[in-house]
């Protein structure tokens, strides 16, 4: 970063100015923090007893850990289902049969435009009213349905744009050696497109994990809902929510870091194998990393998707 092309090495006056800005920045951050803490203390939100109950073993074994498990379960199931949904509908959008293309396209566009929460409210009411999956599972499946339909549609778009960005010669070569269009798609285009879309795909995993917190609104007992229960049982709502936020940040940040590592490793291997350029999709929907990088904006621009991506 010190060698950014955006600015020169600072001279004496610039250095003085930078020191001033540094001071201002630190003061602003420290001031905000102090104000918040002071006000919270005034309101009795910092009382040790409120925070100490968060350390009780039973809080972790009965609420926090089960909550994390439920969060991961919903996210994991949604990721698998969304990948399948995305592949199927992505291929549907690339089909040579017009009605298939049309139907797949409509479904994908529709579910990309509908808010996940709206979908969860609806599917949960539907499942609960007809008791589709049993009382214990209705909310779980409502969360998974909502996350799958939305994220699956985003992945379908990734598949489609990934294939579209391949050099035309790839499909022509496939067709010219006598493969059918379907075979060409499956055995030549898709494998390459999937590698190219990996960064975006991996970014979508974080989105799914984070969005599983919306399940609180439909009584799915994930981490946030469990924090709410802690707040009710121990009379410390705010500390419980702060803990939940910290855990969510850790989980998501952890997944981002792991995903970034996996992504880099796969990219390296892809190049070694002489594959297509891994930066093939600069403007792809949900494009996470892999902007054609000149490095101006600093490293590691990723996960542009605030819960959802556009078109």
């Amino acid at each position, binding site marked *: 970063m010190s060698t950014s092309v955006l600015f020169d090495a*600072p001279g004496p006056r610039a250095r003085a100015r930078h020191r001033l800005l540094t001071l201002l920045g630190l003061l602003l951050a420290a001031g905000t923090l102090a104000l918040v803490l002071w006000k919270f203390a005034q309101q009795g939100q910092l009382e040790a007893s409120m925070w100490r109950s968060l350390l009780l073993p039973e809080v972790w074994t009965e609420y926090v850990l089960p909550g994390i498990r439920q969060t991961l379960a919903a996210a994991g199931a949604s990721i698998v289902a969304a990948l399948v949904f995305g592949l199927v509908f992505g291929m549907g959008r690339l089909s040579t049969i017009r009605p298939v293309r049309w139907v797949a396209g409509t479904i994908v566009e529709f579910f990309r435009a509908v808010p996940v929460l709206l979908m969860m409210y609806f599917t949960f009411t539907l499942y609960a009213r007809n008791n589709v999956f049993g009382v214990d599972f209705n909310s779980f499946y409502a969360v998974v349905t909502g996350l799958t339909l939305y994220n699956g549609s985003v992945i379908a778009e990734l598949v489609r744009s990934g294939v579209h960005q391949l050099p035309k010669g790839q499909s022509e070569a496939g067709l010219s050696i006598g493969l059918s269009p379907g075979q060409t798609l499956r055995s030549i285009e898709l494998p390459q497109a999937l590698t190219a879309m990996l960064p975006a795909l991996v970014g979508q995993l974080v989105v799914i994990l984070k969005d599983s917190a919306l399940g609180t609104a439909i009584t799915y007992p994930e981490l946030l809902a469990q924090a709410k229960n802690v707040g009710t049982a121990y009379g410390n709502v705010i500390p419980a929510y702060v803990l939940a936020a910290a855990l969510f940040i850790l989980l998501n940040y952890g997944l981002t870091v792991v995903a970034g590592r996996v992504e880099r490793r796969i990219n390296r291997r892809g190049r070694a194998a002489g594959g297509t350029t891994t930066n093939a999709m600069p403007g792809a929907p949900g494009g996470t990393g892999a902007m054609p990088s000149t490095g101006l904006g600093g490293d590691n621009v990723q996960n542009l998707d605030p819960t959802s991506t556009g078109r």
Partner: protein
Amino acid sequence: MGEIGDILAKYDVLAAFGMTVYLTVFSAVGALLLGTVLAIMRVSPVGVLRSLGAFYVNTVRNTPLTLILVFCSLGVFFILQLNLEPASSPTFLRDNAIRWAIVGLAAYHAAFVCEALRSGVNTVPAGQAEAARSIGLTFGQSLREVILPQAFRGAIAPLGSVLIALTKNTTVASIVSVSEASALMKVIIENETAGTAVFLVFAIGFVVLTLPVGMLFTTLSRRLAVKR
């Protein structure tokens, strides 16, 4: 279909979507302003500002929006007692709920605007920055005159994505006492039997809101792209 007609007559669906649009517009302006400041911080020559910017983005981006809105409402409004509407107002609670939801939405999406802008900055060739420096422009000048104008044009597509996401994410405000579209849908679904039809009405409402925005931004991004 008759039943849907009755429901539309009985509940003010348009007003609910009006609130969705209201939330979207004001949060979008806020997110764009804050996001730009963050992006400038993240490419600035001052190390502390860069770190603060990065810290903000990484923290906010990894926190569920639900929690951010609850913190704004319960934490900042009720505990810190920061009012965005005089306490004497007869709509004190309602207005504060809406305004703090807007602040929360703006704060959350600012992190994504910041990243979109950084990706826009990345579309500017390094030569541009070098040229700006070589003619003696300072960091501020080169950002203002050379880099940012191109970056905004390069970031239009991702910014459009953020705007669409924001439109849909306003539904989360239903959790903090703001009666927008999804809150009304929940009420209707609980009280009426025509669940699926009601869902379709609201879902299509969101399609109508987001589809044109998507198309507009796609066109804009093509039209305004810097030809290189």
